[in-house]
């Protein structure tokens, strides 16, 4: 009886070990708005083949990506919030911020645009949404990411630029909803609720077929959306794979990959989801 039990335990241990043993991979925490568009799944096999290493991609929001980077649980982070990226590097957690792609944020909403924000600038549109939403919360709704993502940070920045205190907005009323999900699910939610939301262009185009939303506001300096890659600082976390992280940075900014990024989505959506900007901050 004891022998049987011991065999079972041994087999279990071996089985569980065998599903853990594996060559070390490069761990990347990426913003959901890059992942939901399928860009990572498109680039992943090319990187893996070129450098002979497995890419493990954590698809999360910018907030937790920064946390993983600070803790050293990943080797690279790829996010889109310049202010927090610079703070991350200033605090010594990251080596350098390398922009590699950009697009624009859009304010999208129901086709009949009950709040009448079409064509306005982003700050005016938000002001109008606040006024109309307070007056008519059953018909005018806004869904926020509410998850400390890069998109959420941009949303807060627009509210601030429109002279609103963000905490006031959160308590403003039923018209403002915080979803707490990634970009894709937030768009699906806004579509279901006939609501407005702020989205990056890439995810919106990728999800268009599943949504009843249209772009309403797309012009404005503040809507620039830049994706950057940052290697986790090996001085803070010596076990991270800095050489392979730098390989990923080289890969993303290489002319070959930049061309692929610029062409991504054109076949399926009629226009590129991202614009390449190898290593440099894009001009408006």
């Amino acid at each position, binding site marked *: 009886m004891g022998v049987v039990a011991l065999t079972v335990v041994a087999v279990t241990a071996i089985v*569980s070990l065998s599903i853990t043993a*594996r060559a070390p991979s490069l761990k990347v925490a990426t913003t959901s708005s890059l992942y939901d568009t399928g860009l990572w799944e498109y680039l992943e096999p090319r990187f893996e083949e070129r450098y002979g290493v497995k890419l493990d991609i954590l698809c999360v929001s910018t907030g937790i990506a920064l946390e993983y980077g600070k803790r050293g649980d990943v080797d690279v982070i790829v996010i889109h919030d310049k202010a927090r990226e610079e703070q991350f590097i200033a605090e010594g957690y990251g080596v350098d911020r390398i922009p590699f792609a950009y697009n624009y944020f859009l304010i999208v909403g129901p086709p009949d645009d009950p709040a009448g924000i079409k064509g306005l600038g982003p700050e005016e549109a938000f002001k109008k949404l606040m006024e109309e939403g307070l007056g008519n919360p059953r018909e005018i709704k806004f869904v926020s990411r509410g998850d400390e993502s890069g998109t959420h940070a941009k949303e807060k920045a627009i509210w601030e630029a429109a002279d609103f205190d963000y905490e006031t907005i959160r308590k403003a009323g039923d018209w403002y909803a915080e979803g707490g999900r990634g970009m894709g699910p937030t768009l699906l939610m806004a579509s279901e609720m006939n609501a407005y939301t702020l989205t990056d262009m890439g995810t919106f185009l990728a999800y268009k077929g599943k949504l009843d939303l249209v772009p309403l506001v797309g012009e404005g300096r503040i809507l620039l959306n830049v994706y950057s890659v940052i290697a986790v600082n090996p001085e803070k976390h010596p076990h991270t794979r800095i050489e392979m992280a730098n390989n990923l940075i080289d890969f993303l900014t290489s002319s070959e990959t930049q061309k692929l990024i610029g062409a991504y989505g054109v076949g399926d959506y009629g226009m590129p989801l991202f614009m390449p900007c190898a290593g440099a901050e894009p001009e408006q």
Partner: protein
Amino acid sequence: MSEIWEGLIKAVYLIVSLDPEVLEIAGRSLRISGTACLLASLVCLPLGALIHFHQFPVKRVLINVIQALFSLPSVIIGLFIFVLFSRAGPLGELGILFTPTAMIIGQMVLITPILLGLTISALSGVAKEIVDTATSLGASGFQITLLVLGEARYAVVAAVIMAFGRAISEVGCALMVGGNFKGFTRVMTTAISLETSKGELELSLALGIILLFLALIVNIALHRLQQR
């Protein structure tokens, strides 16, 4: 409503065509939850017997705490295991975060209260006289434990079935400590979560149906144990 019907059709198609990615994540779900259930049972079944048949001052309190932990959300366990095994955490050097091992540990913690609590209540039907008789006949502690668990095997196996169900269906812990890496830590539940967030509803429903189908097979197998 048509999504449910289409999900069913897609499920059948994925099973019949032996879709490699589905096979891979189904196999991983079974291995991770099966290992967690087996290892946790090896510890909790004897421990439950021990707790049941001994009197000690805080016994009532301990059983209450165990039963309260039935409601422990999997995402909280995930958070706890994450903080423990994160590089910034006490056991970070082991490099276990974002591996199947961490997921097994998480699920073991998740199902321990269930296994302990339900084993203890399963044994409430076993007469103390059996223990006394066996002891007087010279049985060792190990032999008595096996005897007692065997007497209550129907309810004990039911506890194991319940624990397995809880393990294979949980998603909060698996996502948090596993990372949902394709080809390494992606399991049925985390795949369903990902596909749902992408709006792929038929695929999610199909995966859910397959998961239930797997659970049915495992239950039939474990049921045989109950009958013996």
